């Protein structure tokens, strides 16, 4: 029976060259890709528990399920598009290789999340309180939201830098690496924003009840919200 090789995440952390070599030489199997996906599930699940920890244990469990779903779901939705653009650009990547490369960058981002999880937990336990006036709660919510945005952004940037470096190692010279990377990044961000909108809440506003998903999650999309609510508010000077 084929076993899932679980040490690729560790190899990616300590010796990424070995991973890129394995991808280039078609040594990576689907079970290895599954191993990376499992690592993403565990790491995101752990971080998700901390992410919503300030609001309620129930939301913690929900987010521990939803955060891996968000990352893996986004990767799956854009997987075919990524493979097609890579093929059109002459990258010479198989479908499996294109999925593996994206999961590899996610794995590196997840290592950053794991590394910063004690810091996030410490801020959660020592810096924010789920008691006080509505203003106190709003302050605590915004604070914890900003902390997680910074940590997730750091993980995202590190993962994407690794992805760009990996693509440079993998594709032939004639393939335009930067436009290919940019198209992958834009498609991931475009889909990821909408999926996170559907799967909200993540941090958990103190003014809404705890729920796995909001009842109106499919009523509008993220971009409608930005263009009809956020932008007019900003253009009116926050009034």
């Amino acid at each position, binding site marked *: 029976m084929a076993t899932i090789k679980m040490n690729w995440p560790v190899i990616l*952390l*300590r010796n*990424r060259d070995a991973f890129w070599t394995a991808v280039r030489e078609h040594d990576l199997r689907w079970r290895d890709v599954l191993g990376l996906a499992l690592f993403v599930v565990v790491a995101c699940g752990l971080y998700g528990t901390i992410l919503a920890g300030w609001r309620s244990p129930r939301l913690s469990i929900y987010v521990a399920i939803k955060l891996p779903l968000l990352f893996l779901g986004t990767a799956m939705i854009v997987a075919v598009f990524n493979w097609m653009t890579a093929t059109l650009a002459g990258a010479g990547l198989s479908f499996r290789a294109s999925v593996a490369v994206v999961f590899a960058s996610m794995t*590196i981002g997840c*290592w*950053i999340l*794991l*590394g*910063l*999880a*004690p*810091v996030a937990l*410490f*801020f959660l*336990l*020592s*810096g*924010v*309180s789920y008691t006080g006036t509505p203003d106190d709660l709003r*302050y605590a919510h915004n*604070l914890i939201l900003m902390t997680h945005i910074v940590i997730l952004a*750091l993980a995202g940037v*590190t993962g994407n830098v*690794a992805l760009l470096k990996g693509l440079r190692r993998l594709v032939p010279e004639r393939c335009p690496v930067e436009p290919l990377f940019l198209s992958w990044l834009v498609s991931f961000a475009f889909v990821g924003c909408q999926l996170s909108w559907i799967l909200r809440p993540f941090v958990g506003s103190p003014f809404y009840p705890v729920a796995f998903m909001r009842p109106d999650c499919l009523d509008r999309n993220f971009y409608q919200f930005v263009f009809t609510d956020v932008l007019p508010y900003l253009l009116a000077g926050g009034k």
Partner: protein
Amino acid sequence: MSETTMPQTDPIPAPPCETDSGNIVTALLKSPERVADTIAGEDRNLPATSAILFAVAVACHVVFGLAIGLFAGWPVAIMDAVKAPLVAVCSLLLCFPSLYVFACVAGSPLTLALGCSCLAMVGLILVGLAPVGWLFAVSTDSVPFIVILALILWLVAVMFAARYVGKLRAHTLFQRQGGIKLWFLILVVVTLQMTTCMRPMLAKPTTGWWTTQKQFFLSHFGSTL
């Protein structure tokens, strides 16, 4: 013709092993490359070296805590002599996983010994600045002033530690350091939050040495200053 004999030269002595506390402290200040050699060598003396660096770091923070704590008298000085090393050690422990991951991602496997050497460097600079801290601590009664002074002295020490890590680039193992400067920023933020968590630091404790009230460091420093 008489046969000339080549003078016998002594073999080049091996570099001294950095397990003596005096040697390691001197090396940390004068030639960090030697400390890097010891750390990178991963010889059997590495745990002893790490322990010495850790002990030096703790002792130095005790001295700094004592000096700054004299601002509010001996009871606060004793409390700070305990809390200052605790803040430093707990912050490093919390940030060590991220240091390890950042270093690995950059391609330079760092060890606990390097973390201890960073902490020892911060401590040594703080000891050097402790007389300055003490002088101002005993000659002012302004809390905002002493808070800002302590913050500046500590930031100077952290900058020296960051510079020390930069100097380790001379060693092949530590050449790639992408993200380490960013890690220092994380360490600074975590240490500020740890200080808030362990408050009161510079005021006479009214209800004991520790507090259970949660507070974010920006809000705490805002109310103090």
